[in-house]
């Protein structure tokens, strides 16, 4: 028995050296002031040295590792990883570590609104007045600039820009 242990016993201070103290030590709760306000957070701290309590498995999905891409095959082939409960408990029974129980399930693309889009053809001929072509060429720069702005904002696809470059 060391000197520190002897001092603790004399002063009646338990350091939790006995196994029974460690096993049945209640969850300690520390009030922590948050940003100096009166709001106090109570954080339960578990005994991490001897884990005899059941592991709390959160009943929520693991954060999906989704690849943000506009390519449909990437979206289709992408898989979302999350913990499957059955695999988790099966592995715990078999003594496999938690990190090996990550199951890959098919990625389901969640659409916010199922909108049906159609193709529309617009035929807009010029007026047949004499000065229309000059007016069209004078306004054309603004027209192309507006389309470039829409391409930057993602409203118009870049395919339009390529066509406008090809037909000056």
């Amino acid at each position: 028995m060391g000197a520190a242990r002897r001092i603790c016993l004399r002063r009646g201070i338990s350091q939790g050296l006995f196994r029974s103290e460690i096993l049945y030590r209640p969850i300690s709760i520390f009030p922590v002031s948050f940003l100096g306000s009166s709001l106090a957070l109570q954080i339960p701290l578990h005994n991490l040295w001897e884990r005899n309590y059941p592991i709390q498995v959160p009943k929520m999905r693991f954060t999906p590792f989704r690849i943000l891409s506009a390519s449909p095959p990437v979206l289709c082939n992408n898989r979302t990883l999350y913990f499957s409960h059955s695999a988790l408990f099966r592995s715990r029974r078999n003594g496999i570590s938690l990190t090996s129980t990550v199951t890959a399930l098919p990625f389901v693309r969640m659409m916010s609104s199922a909108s049906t889009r159609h193709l529309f053809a617009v035929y807009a001929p010029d007026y047949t007045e004499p000065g229309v072509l000059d007016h069209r060429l004078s306004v054309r720069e603004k027209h192309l600039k507006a389309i470039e702005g829409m391409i930057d904002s993602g409203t118009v696809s870049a395919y339009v820009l390529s066509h406008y470059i090809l037909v000056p």
Partner: protein
Amino acid sequence: MFCRITSLSRDDHYFHTEFGGPLLAPELTDESGRKKMIGSLVFYEAESIEEVRKMVESDIYYTSGVVRLLHCSRFSAAHSTPNVTL
């Protein structure tokens, strides 16, 4: 050669112009060598025809009196090249 690039943020007001361009007269150029453009032909992808009309009528060609919206209707592509998805 051309790859179709669409926006990542597909919100409710997302509007997508497929492609478009000017229509040329049979003589192609006028006496000064300029392209003789006689109109516009645009293909839109939208939910309703009102969206398309709103899009066309907000363009400067329409507001400044160059083009008139003569025809706007649904379009169904019977054939498309592999690089161009209609």
